[in-house]
């Protein structure tokens, strides 16, 4: 089926998320929608899928104008979607998730689970998946959950399939497999829309590329275009794709983590006997697919986890068993994984957020009352230093873009006297300009001579920032390798296969 979007416009209040977007997707092609975070790709697809109503414009399928009141209409018309945040009910089984909304029933509305199981098995067989129809979705690894999402879309006989940022949670190998699935679907005649901001994937799989910036189509590109060309089209200017940094100058001070173990509330071991050390002046990137213990590791470093065993020594000082405040006082700076829930108070102003961690004494608090003048001059200084694009320090942080929010977090954490800097996913949901800035500041922090730990699920970022890379899988360390380790090896490590035993063993990898 041929899909055509004509002049789609979607506004949220004053913000124009989609501004007269035209797009044509032919059957049997993979059409890539490339754009930065916040460019309006997901909004456009939600309009297509009936989740949002367009303010202007038309959706045409095989030249017939469609009216979608909801996702049910879109699905009935043959549109399927693999969502960025999986639309699966965690406590349901695979079969229940696949049948939901299209349940076949026996007499009296009784669910026909056998039919759903058969459907799962049939589609799994077509693509060589191994998915147990009776497994609970929450027990499955994210890669398999995504396959459930694909099975769900296909079970509705979709002719047009939208993949919304599908590779964010996958290992490189899983990404390759997904590309294979997309090609197979294309060859069967499905029209595929592939949304992403990762250039490598675009060039690998796309038949055509449409680039979106600030809600507008800014051009088409051919898959043979270089990374640099695609990036500058996406961002609107030339982009520095590598992080400039010198060889590290190692110092004596260090973070020493020995046999660290973090246990979750249900007794599951989330961080399993992890040992590593980071010397002053180097960046250790903790890589791995999301959900393999990185979050818990960083939280343990800051004292946010309850059941922690083992030892964390910063310059010889033990941190395990101390309160968060004591650890902050010991000189640990921390950029949390999710800035909106852990890093910032959205309803507070920039100035208030910048002094959140220093409300226990001078210079910002004296005798229990806030020193507004000191706070405001501090805030103005930091806003200028960290290039936070805002109308003023009284702006509520919740109204800033992701990149500017992250700069506020960074400004707060880096403005103390630090002896260790921990940044979890520092560039997630951040525009390219801010990413460059954040990377630069992280390298500068390293060069001041303190240990830096960065958690990243993006292999590109890991390789660009790291002096050494530590890969985690299911709570354990798979290996600690130099930053120039081949990507294949890193990819296998992310799937739990240690470098020594990997098929393409590199002699210098250990």
């Amino acid at each position, binding site marked *: 089926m041929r899909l055509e979007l004509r002049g789609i416009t979607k506004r*949220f209040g004053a913000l124009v998320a989609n501004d007269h977007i035209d797009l044509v997707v032919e059957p049997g092609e993979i059409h890539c929608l490339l754009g930065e975070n916040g460019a309006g790709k997901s909004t456009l697809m939600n309009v297509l*899928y009936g*989740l*949002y109503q367009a303010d202007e414009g038309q959706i045409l399928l095989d030249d017939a104008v469609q009216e979608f009141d*909801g*996702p*049910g*209409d879109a*699905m*009935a018309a043959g549109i399927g*979607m693999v*969502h960025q945040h*999986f*639309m*699966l*009910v*965690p*406590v*349901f089984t695979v079969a*229940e*998730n696949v*049948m*939901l*909304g*299209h*349940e076949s*029933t026996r007499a*009296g*509305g*009784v*669910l026909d689970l056998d039919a759903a199981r058969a459907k799962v098995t049939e589609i799994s067989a077509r693509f060589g998946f191994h998915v147990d129809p009776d497994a609970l979705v929450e027990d499955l*690894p994210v890669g*398999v959950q995504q396959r459930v999402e694909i099975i*769900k879309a296909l079970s509705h006989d979709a002719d047009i399939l939208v993949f919304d940022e599908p590779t964010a949670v996958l290992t490189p190998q899983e990404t390759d497999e997904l590309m294979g699935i997309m090609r197979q679907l294309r060859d069967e005649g499905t029209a595929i829309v592939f949304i992403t901001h990762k250039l490598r994937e675009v060039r690998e799989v796309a038949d055509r590329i449409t680039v979106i910036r600030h809600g507008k189509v800014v051009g088409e590109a051919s898959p043979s275009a270089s990374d640099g060309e695609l990036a500058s089209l996406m961002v609107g200017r030339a982009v520095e794709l590598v992080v400039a940094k010198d060889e590290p100058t190692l110092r004596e001070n260090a973070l020493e983590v020995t046999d660290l173990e973090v*246990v979750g*509330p*249900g*007794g*599951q*071991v*989330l961080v*399993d006997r992890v040992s590593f050390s980071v010397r002053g002046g180097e960046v250790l990137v903790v890589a791995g697919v999301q959900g393999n213990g990185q979050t818990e590791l960083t939280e343990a470093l800051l004292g946010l986890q309850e*059941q922690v065993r083992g030892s964390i020594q910063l310059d010889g000082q033990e941190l395990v068993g101390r309160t968060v405040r004591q650890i902050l006082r010991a000189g640990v700076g921390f950029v949390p994984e999710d800035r909106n829930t852990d890093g910032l108070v959205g309803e507070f102003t920039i100035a208030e957020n910048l002094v959140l961690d220093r409300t226990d004494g001078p210079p910002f608090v004296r005798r229990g009352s806030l020193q507004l003048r000191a706070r405001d001059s501090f805030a103005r200084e930091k806003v200028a230093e960290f290039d936070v694009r805002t109308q003023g320090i009284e702006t509520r942080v919740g109204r800033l873009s992701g990149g500017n929010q992250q700069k506020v977090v960074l400004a707060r954490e880096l403005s103390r006297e630090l002896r260790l800097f921990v940044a979890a996913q520092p560039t997630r949901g951040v525009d390219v300009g801010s990413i460059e800035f954040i990377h630069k500041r992280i390298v500068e922090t390293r060069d001041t001579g303190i240990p830096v730990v960065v958690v990243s699920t993006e292999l590109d970022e890991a390789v660009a920032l790291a002096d050494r890379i530590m890969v985690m*899988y*299911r*709570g*354990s360390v798979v290996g600690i390798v130099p930053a120039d380790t081949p990507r294949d090896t890193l990819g296998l490590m992310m*799937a*739990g*296969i*240690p470098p020594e*035993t*990997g*098929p393409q063993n590199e002699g210098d990898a250990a």
Partner: protein
Amino acid sequence: MTATTAGVPAAAGAPASQDAPRAVATTTWKAVIGLGVVLVLYALLLLLSPHDGSARFLLSTSTDLFVLSTFVVPAMATAWVCGGVGLAVLLLAAVRTRAGRPVPVWAIAVFAAALLVGFLAWAAAGSPRDLSVVGLLSGSVALCVPIVYGALGGVIGERSGVVNIAIEGQLLAGAFTAAIVGSITDSPWAGLVAAVLASALVALVLGMFTITYKVNQVIVGVVLNVLVIGLTSFFYSEVLVPNAETLNTTTRFERLPVPFLERIPIVGPVLFNQTIVVYLMFVAVAVVWFALFRTRWGLRVRAVGEHPKAADTVGIDVVRTRYRAVLIGGAMAGMGGAFYTVVSINQFGREMTAGAGFIALAAVIFGKWDPLRAALAGLLFGFATNLQNVLSVVGSPVPSQFMLMLPYVVTLLAVAGLVGRSRAPAAAGDAYSKE
């Protein structure tokens, strides 16, 4: 591959997804300490206030197929033996906890049962009257009716994502309406239907504010309770009291003994000599369970309560599904409300539900949002209430104020300590909006 090396694949190229993450036991001493405290209190009671004489447990009613003889035991000896059983369970629990294994539920059940029997023996010692076991149990079944109906309503609502704090108000509205309509028409059936409609009306208001206008569900529920208490109290004193003959004197449902079954000793009179509302309750528990877990309706209700956006993206109308669930839940609570005025007694009284709706809310949580477990929890609370009634009849030495507290203490202990880890529907309490 052993459990301790999980997380590191055994061989090169082994499929990495096969090994499960390692887990360690995280048992707490909470259960052991709790049991220990209860046992100490129990022992203190026996030591400080010994009761001589024997306790007489009456096991039969006159219509039984065969008559079980009255069970007479020496009170203090029985109480101490039961305490001994409790001590044995406590030791077992301590050993299990040391070994890093959880205390099994049956052990706690045995502990509770042993101490209960011991306590009854102690309390009934030397009383001129027999303690009727049948009366104790059948009264429990009767008293749990509004709680169970209320809890079923709560389970359905919360499974769809709407927390229903207004169960109390729904019960009260049902009781009030059933009283008036039942009195005017002289028909308990009309009263029952009216109660269902009145409760559904309260549920409709709850739904409008929480689903359509996305007001905080807890606040709306609390406000509705206060509103219904105010309205019914006002109309009770202004309208029902002056016209008690015509508006507040209902005909009650008669008991409907099931032939033959009712003559089985103990079980018969407890389960099979009740009113139609009680039998309907048994049916309702089974039907709600089946509907929630085996039908399309139930799958959709649960999906909407767990992950409304996922339901929306497969074309399920979240708002409509929630409304329907809340209304059905309200109707359930209405059945419970009718119990007060067309089954239990024949007239309405000011605030006569006396917190049963909140106990029902506790039963929802204690029952882990499962209709069967919630019903059993309701039965437990009904038992606690009736225990107090029965003990005051045999002339218990415990001050009546303490006995009146019993159901609430049981509720508190049950919800706080025994429930274990329970997980509410993920979206319960959250209004759904698309953007």
